[in-house]
Structure formats: C-alpha cells, structure tokens
C-alpha cells in the first residue's frame, strides 16, 4: 500500500498529523486524544450510528457539530472536542441512550469495563428527565450455544451485526423491526452459530451480548491478566488471558496488527475451559499389571530414569513437542540428543509438511503480505475450519482490499463467496490440476491470467490429511516463479514451526539449521551428538513394532489418534518395551504408556512460540498448574540428572538464553526483546537483514495423480474430537455429526440415499457412517470430516472404496 499523504490538523489547539482521508476520530486517537464513541471500531467501517463522537469542526460558516467517526481529515482542519456545544451534545446523546437502558450494572458482566457506564460517568448528564416506563424484553435469550443476548441493554450500535457481515462473513444476526422496537436478533431457526461469535461479545460496548462460559464468573476489577498467544493453531493470535482466583475465566483478543487484529475464533477464546478440566492429569502415574496407579514424582522419575538408562540411545525415540513452548521443545530435543543420545526425533506425525519446507521455504510470505497481495493462491485446508483467524485476514484481503483470490480445494470452503476463482478437484489428482493451471489450458486460462498479476502470495498446505505432502511443495515451486511470488506454508499444531525450529525433526538442529551443516558446531556446545540418521514418526512407530526400537518418550502428542495410520501407531506403542508420556490429559496414546507424567500447559507456562510465518512471540504464565503438575522442561531436567547428565535448565528463561546463543536463527531474540517495544508484535525470523540459515527451494518432483475411482478428502473441522476441545464443555457440544459426504451422482451410482449407511475403506482402516449429499464435491470425491469420534479409525488414505450397507 502506498503511504498516504499526511495532513496537519488542530484539535483543541494542538497540532497533529494524520493520513489524508483518515477519519477524524482515528487521527485524534493515534495522537493521544480520545473521543468517546460506541459504534466506531478501528477495524470496521464507520457508520455514524450512535452520535457519541460529535465534535465541533470549523467550517466556512462557523463551527459545525459533526460525528468524528465519519468526518475525514483534511489539511488545516480545526477541531474542538471540549466546547460547551460538544458537551451538551454528549450529554444529550447519553441521556437519550439511557432512556431504554435497564441500568442493571450490578448484575451485568460488563459492569466495570463497560463503555456505556464509563462514558456516562465521564460525559453524561448525571440525571435523566425520562420518567416514563422503559421497554422490557425477556432476558437473556440465547442466540447461540455460546452467546446470550439481553436486548434491553443494547444501544443499537451495530458493531455486532457489522462484524458478522463485514469481518466474519456470516451475517446471522441483524436488526429487526424499527423505531422503539428495533432489536438485534437471529432468524428464528438459524442460531448465531458462527466460529467467531465471541468477538461480538468482546466488542459490544454494553452488556447486551455475553458469553455463556464467562457469564457471572467474575467482575472485571477482580481479574488478573497477562498477554499471551493462542496456541490453538499456528496463526499466533495475540490474547489476553484473564483469571480470577487462580482460575482462567476468560480469553480476549488483543489487536496485534500483523496477526489477529483483535479477532479470535471461538476455539481460541473458549478453549480455556480445558485448563481447569477435572480430567487434567495431576499426579504421576505408573502402570502396574495393566492399570495405572498414582505415584510420587521421585518414584516415577527414578523409574523412568532407570529404564531409559537401560537402553542404548539409538533404541529410544522421542515424539511430540508441537503443542509446547520453544523452550520446552528445546529442552526435549536437548534431552533426546545429549542425554538419551538418540537421533529419532519428530514433532510431526506425518500429518504435516516436510520439515525443511515448512521452516525453510523462501521467499516466505508473512501474514501482512496479504494486505498488499494482488493475487492470493490458496491451496490448503479450509482456512475457516483450520485457521479461522487467517481466514479472516484472507477474507479481508479479498473482500476489502481487492485481491484476486484463487481457492483450490476438493470441496466448498468458507472463502468461496469472496473468491474470484474456485477450483475443485478430486483428492489425489492435484498434480494434474497444478499442471493444467500452470499451462493455463482450457478453463484455467482466466486463472493463469490472474496469477500473472503480482505480487502473489501462495498459501499452501495439505487440503486433507490423505493428500501427498509433496503436492504442497510442488504448488510452492510453481508459485515461487510467479510475479512477486511468496509462500506461506501451513501446518497445523499450535507451535509446530517452533518445535521444528528447536530441532525436533531427525534432520534438523535448533535454530533453523540442518543436522548435516550444524552437527559439529553444536557438538562444540553440547558434546557428542548421535551420529546415525534418525527416523521420522512413521519410521519410529515401525521400528517399535519391529523391535528395532525399544522405548518411546512422548511430549504432548497422541500418535494413536493423530497418525495417518492409527493401527500402526497403536501396534508400535503396544510393542514398545517402555513408553513414557508427558501430557495434560489421558489420550489414546497415554493410555498405552507405562509412565505418565503430568505437566503444565497453556496459561501455566512462560516461554516463546513461533507461528507459521516464523514469528516469535511470548506466551505468559498466569495460573499455577493443577495438583502436582510441573513444567515439562523441569521434568526433563530432573530426568537428565537421574541419567547422569544435566540440561542446565534452571528455569525456562535460562533455556531461552541458551536458545538465543546456540540456535542461529534465534540470535538476538530474547524474552526482553519480545516483551518490550516493537518485539511485542512478534519478531519474524530471520529478523531484518538476518540470514535464513536453512534455505529451502521448493521443487516439483513430478508427482503423478491417483487414478482411483474415489478420492478421500479427510478434511479437518474446527470442533473436532481433539483432546482440548473434548475437555472444553462449551466447545465439545459443538462438534459436528459425522457423515460420508458424496455428490448426488456418485450416491446414485452406488444406489445410496441420504442417511443410508455406507462403509468407506482405505489403506489404513474403515468406517461405517450415514451418507449426506454435498454437491460442492466433484464426482469421485468423498468427504469425511477428520478426527471426529466416529471417523477417527479411517486413517489418512487417498484412494478409498465405498460399499453400501444393506439394511437388514
């Protein structure tokens, strides 16, 4: 975007500058003059609905009372925000707004942080002349499972309705009726079931919209808060975590310009319920005769240390670390490489992308690049389901900023309505589609023309879990040669990029460097490192099953649930002689472990995380962990001591300092730089002028398309059966029902009607489910939502066979 010309204006006698054409209220705010407002929101268009922001502007015929949220600044403008006329106007507006307001602040969640309350005290008339009967509504009414509406309190600012139309694109709430009867409401049988509904609660300037998980939990003045980063996905949305009496009760969005711009998904927002779930593991567990019993830390650590010391390093493997902080991941890697001395390390479960590609691809796009992109090529999972906040950014780029958006996906996606081109294809046939797009043949001529308009940002990932990860690399290789082409690779787990940056892959070492180049350098710091080639997660599970590997350490990972081949994962864990898990909850995998160690999680740990752009930000600790839980790094440090070594981990911060020292890409990144100044927006590595140590140039290695009759799209959904969703009651209730989705023609071919039972069988497993018709699928595409309790046994195949279940 070209920088806008600056103009000079005078507000209350103070000269200030702002971009020409910007609204007055914003220029004033950026220069430290707060003009009261209700309807204006810096991230939405002005509507001038509430008149709270009236100011006097000098005009040719003297001062005029104008709403500062719709008045654009021009050079030499003179503004008075304090005149008697302005004060009178403010008093009038507030007296008027309070006519129908119930003034039930003592029982309102918003009381204490309510703009209406604050403005009334600061700018209000003190008394009302209104003596008549106020209007009454039934209160509150649920407008979704998560949001309640007290219509009496609403001041009709339209922030919520504008958010749902302008920002999230699901306008399920609107005004109804007129005059005295106007109210915000949904359509009778269509609840406000938006993935973003919580944002309206946050931006409502009164207590009209409240969130079910927070309602009546606390008063704002009792809350303690820290800034942190949501670890639900790898967008790295900035949040404020808030607690009352050592219990996290709310998460709000913080406006971080490069990432979430204040918005969160409801999953980011309400996942906090899992922190205090009664199902949290709180004591070390040791399995005896097939059942777990509680143990003391000393006993459990002694046992683990002793058992692990009994194996050669290379017969032990470590999986996980992608849901942890960088410091924990680093400690895990150091523990595995220097104490256990094993090269078998993987943070992914063969459900992501090539680690070198994921962290090293160049030129890498940042999220703000979307603002200036002329064309966005999106060939990844459905962003609305997998990366809701990134979905908002792409939506904005396409709908507001005019970027051409090309969506390539097997099925309709949340962005189709703002896409200029939608390409649907059968999973497995992506390579052919890519070649056709590149050739601009036939239908793709327009697409090719659009792609010729740079700068192009290509967002690449796996559309579904069965898709060959090399397809994403081929797409990146293609996109990189487009004008101004940059790549934003996507992998899902919260801190996957951080984990890989910390060396949690067989071929990587900490600091975005490859094993082969940095081996000797790191040995100089750490002493001898394993010399043999490590195995990735599939190789680890295979090795355990075949007896080549004997023991497994898991850090917050659930291969039995999440690996592409769940049966193989279970077989591997079952065959292992010794399995130890560090986790927050029991999972399918921890159930198979011999020792389970309960560790601190989000809200309980301090550290840094790295998002999918490579942006490092700080997460902070607010509450103590439950029961006897401990930080993962300190558990690993204790184990190291029992095994005769030392991680040197006195605190998470000492680890951060060590990362800064030994991990090349992280040179100069300290907690201080992240906590203060511009680093609070996060530092994208390599920081300006820095060196990209691992430069990965994507290649198209000539993948061939699958010829199977049916291709499975195993696509992720936001509210799946993942453990943290399951442990957050408000979210768990929102998990969708499982179906096998088919196009009507395919269903007819197979003699299937809606709700008939069908068996889908792939390479790794099968499921039996009812059929639903979805004509956004092309012929040959079968869509099954991934990781629901009813679909988890399917495994991530591409080619599948369908067979009707004859009802008996």
């Amino acid at each position, binding site marked *: 975007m070209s920088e806008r010309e600056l103009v000079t204006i005078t507000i209350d006698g103070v000269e200030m500058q702002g971009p020409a054409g910007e609204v007055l209220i914003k220029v004033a705010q950026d220069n430290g003059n707060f003009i009261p407002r209700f309807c204006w929101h810096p991230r939405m268009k002005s509507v001038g609905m509430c008149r709270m922001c009236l100011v006097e502007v000098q005009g040719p015929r003297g001062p005029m009372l104008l709403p500062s949220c719709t008045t654009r600044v021009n050079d030499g403008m003179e503004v008075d925000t304090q005149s008697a006329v302005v004060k009178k106007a403010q008093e009038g507006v507030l007296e008027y707004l309070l006519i129908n307001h119930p003034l039930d602040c003592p029982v309102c969640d918003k009381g204490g942080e309510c703009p209406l309350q604050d403005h009334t005290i600061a700018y209000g008339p003190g008394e009302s002349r209104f003596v008549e009967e106020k209007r009454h509504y039934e209160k509150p009414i649920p407008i979704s499972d998560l949001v309640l509406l007290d219509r009496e309190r609403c001041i009709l600012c339209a922030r919520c309705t504008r958010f749902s139309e302008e920002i999230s694109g699901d*306008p*399920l709430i609107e*005004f109804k*009726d*007129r005059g005295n009867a106007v109210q915000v409401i949904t*359509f009778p049988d269509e609840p406000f079931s938006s993935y973003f509904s919580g944002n309206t609660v946050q931006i409502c300037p009164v207590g009209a919209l409240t969130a079910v998980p927070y309602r009546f939990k606390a008063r704002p003045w009792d809350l303690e808060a820290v800034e942190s980063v949501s670890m639900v996905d790898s967008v790295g949305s900035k949040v404020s975590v808030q607690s009352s009496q050592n219990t996290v009760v709310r998460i709000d969005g913080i406006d971080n310009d490069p990432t979430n711009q204040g918005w969160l998904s409801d999953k980011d927002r309400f996942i906090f319920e899992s922190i205090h779930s009664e199902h949290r593991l709180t004591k070390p567990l040791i399995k005896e005769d097939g059942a777990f019993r509680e143990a003391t830390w000393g006993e459990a650590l002694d046992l683990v240390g002793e058992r692990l010391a009994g194996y050669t390093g290379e017969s032990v493997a470590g999986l996980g670390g992608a849901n942890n902080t960088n410091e924990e991941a680093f400690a895990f890697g150091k523990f595995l490489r220097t104490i256990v001395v094993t090269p078998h390390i993987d943070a992914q479960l063969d459900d992501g992308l090539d680690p070198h590609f994921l962290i090293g691809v160049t030129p890498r796009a940042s999220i703000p690049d979307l603002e200036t992109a002329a064309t966005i090529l999106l060939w990844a999972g459905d962003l609305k389901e997998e990366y809701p906040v990134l979905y908002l950014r792409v939506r904005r780029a396409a709908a507001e900023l005019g970027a051409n958006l090309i969506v390539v996906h097997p099925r309709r996606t949340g962005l189709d309505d703002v896409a200029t081109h939608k390409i649907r294809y059968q999973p497995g046939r992506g390579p052919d589609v890519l070649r056709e797009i590149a050739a601009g043949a036939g239908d793709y001529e327009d697409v090719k023309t659009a792609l010729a308009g740079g700068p192009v940002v290509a967002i690449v990932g796996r559309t579904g879990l069965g898709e060959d990860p090399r397809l994403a690399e081929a797409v990146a290789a293609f996109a990189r040669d487009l004008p101004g082409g940059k790549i934003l690779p996507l992998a899902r787990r919260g801190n996957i990029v951080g984990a890989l940056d910390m060396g949690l892959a067989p071929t990587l070492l900490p600091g975005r460097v490859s094993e082969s180049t940095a081996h000797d350098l790191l040995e100089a710091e750490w002493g001898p490192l394993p010399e043999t080639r490590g195995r990735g997660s599939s190789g680890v599970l295979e090795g355990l099953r075949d007896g080549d590997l004997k023991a497994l350490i898991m850090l917050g990972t659930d291969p039995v649930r999440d690996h592409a081949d769940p049966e193989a994962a279970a077989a591997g864990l079952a065959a292992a002689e010794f399995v130890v898990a560090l986790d927050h909850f029991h999972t399918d995998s921890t159930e198979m472990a011999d020792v389970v160690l309960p560790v601190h999680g989000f809200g309980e740990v301090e550290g840094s995380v790295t998002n999918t752009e490579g942006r490092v930000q700080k997460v902070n600790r607010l509450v103590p962990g439950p029961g006897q839980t401990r930080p993962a790094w300190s558990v690993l440090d204790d184990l190291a001591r029992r095994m005769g070594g030392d991680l040197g981990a006195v605190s998470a911060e000492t680890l951060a300092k060590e990362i800064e020292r030994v991990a090349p890409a992280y040179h100069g990144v300290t907690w201080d730089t992240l906590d203060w100044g511009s680093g609070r927006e996060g530092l994208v590595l390599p920081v300006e002028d820095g060196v990209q140590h691992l430069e990965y140039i994507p290649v198209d290695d000539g993948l061939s398309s699958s010829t199977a009759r049916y291709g499975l799209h195993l696509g992720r959904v936001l509210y799946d059966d993942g453990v943290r969703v399951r442990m957050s009651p408000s979210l768990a209730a929102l998990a969708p029902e499982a179906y096998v989705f088919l196009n009507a023609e395919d269903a007819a071919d197979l003699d299937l009607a809606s709700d008939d039972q069908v068996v889908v069988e792939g390479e790794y497993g099968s499921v039996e489910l009812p059929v639903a018709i979805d*004509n956004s699928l092309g012929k040959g595409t079968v869509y099954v939502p991934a990781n629901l309790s009813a679909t988890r046994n399917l495994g991530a195949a591409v080619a599948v066979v369908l067979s009707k279940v004859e009802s008996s």
Partner: protein
Amino acid sequence: MRQVDLTAEETSAIAGWSAESRRRAEEILSLYPEKRSAVMPLLYISMIENAYVTADGMRQVGVLTGLSPAQVQSVASFYTMYKREPVGKYLVGVCTSISCFLLGADDVLAAIEDESGVPDGETGSDGVLSVEHVECNGACGGAPVVLVNWEMIESVTPEKARELVKWLRDGQPEVANTEEMQQLFGGERSFDWGIKEPEGAILPVPAFGPYGSVGEDS
C-alpha cells in the same frame, strides 16, 4: 438489463413459485447490478406466492439475493407494507396523518371498523378484510384518503366508507381499481389532471408492473 442465469440452488429455492412469479423474479434480478438490491421487489413476489412474508419466503429471497435470512428479515420487518402475518383479501388502509386527520379520518376509520367488525390492525375471521391506519400517502389535497390494496380513493366520508366495506365484502371484486372505486366511493381528487391508472390490484401488494396487478399494460 443484464442476463441472469439462476444457479441450481436459486432455481430449486423458488421451484414452488408460479411460472409467472419466477419470470418476474428473473426480470427483477436482471435490473440490478448487485443481486442484493433486488431484495425489496422480490419480497413482494414472495408475498404473492405465500400470501404474506413467511419464513420460507424470506429464505427464498435470501437465496436469490445472496443475503442471509436474518438480513432479509431485517428489511422485511422494517417496512410496514411487508406483511408478516396473513392479510385479508382486501387490505383497507385509512390515512390518519395530519391532513386526513383534520378532515375526519378518525371517523372514517371508525366507520370502517364498525361496519366490518374488524379493529384497526387486524384481519376479519373470514379472511376477507384487513383494516389498518397508515401514514401520509402524499395525497393530502384529497384528504381523507382510503386505500384498498394500495389503490387510492380520495375524499372519503364515513358513509361512503361503510358502502365501500359492504361492496368489498358482498361483491368481492376480482380487481381493486382506483378509477372504479373513486367513482363509487370518493369525492374530490387532489389532482383532476393526474395520470389515469389503468392497472388495478388483485392482491394486498402494490400494483406496480412486476407485482400482483392486472390492467392494460401489465
């Protein structure tokens, strides 16, 4: 005018509409560069099809205009001419704004309520008449004004109003036509030189070309 080709989803949403309404809907959509701009005329068509603005009707219009049902409801509930409850065959509106009020509109309304047995704002149990008071119709020169299915009669007296009710109830004319009703029940008109309106309303929706009207050039 632009060519509109309804998508499969749009076509199936209004599959239940009459051929004529479907044609009109397409015609209306073709008039606007943005689909959503067609929401108001389409709501009238949905009223013709469903007798009033029903939840299904709002959903159908939503599909045609790319709006969510909540957004369509927002429009439909703002304007009083969109009826969200069943209306009688004849919607009788009495203007009670200032000019008509000064010239006896209240008596006219009372006469209509009394003769029909239908109170202001309600519909008779036989479904023939609905009575309501309306705001200024811009015909203040011919006050007081009564509307039958939005067809106007000017300078109506309480006696004539009673006759009008009887005429509607007993005769149940197919078309409510201004010229005819003015002759029978009206007095002086605001503009004698005003354009002649050949069209008449056949339903409680306004008789503009595309909607429920009959006449010479519909």
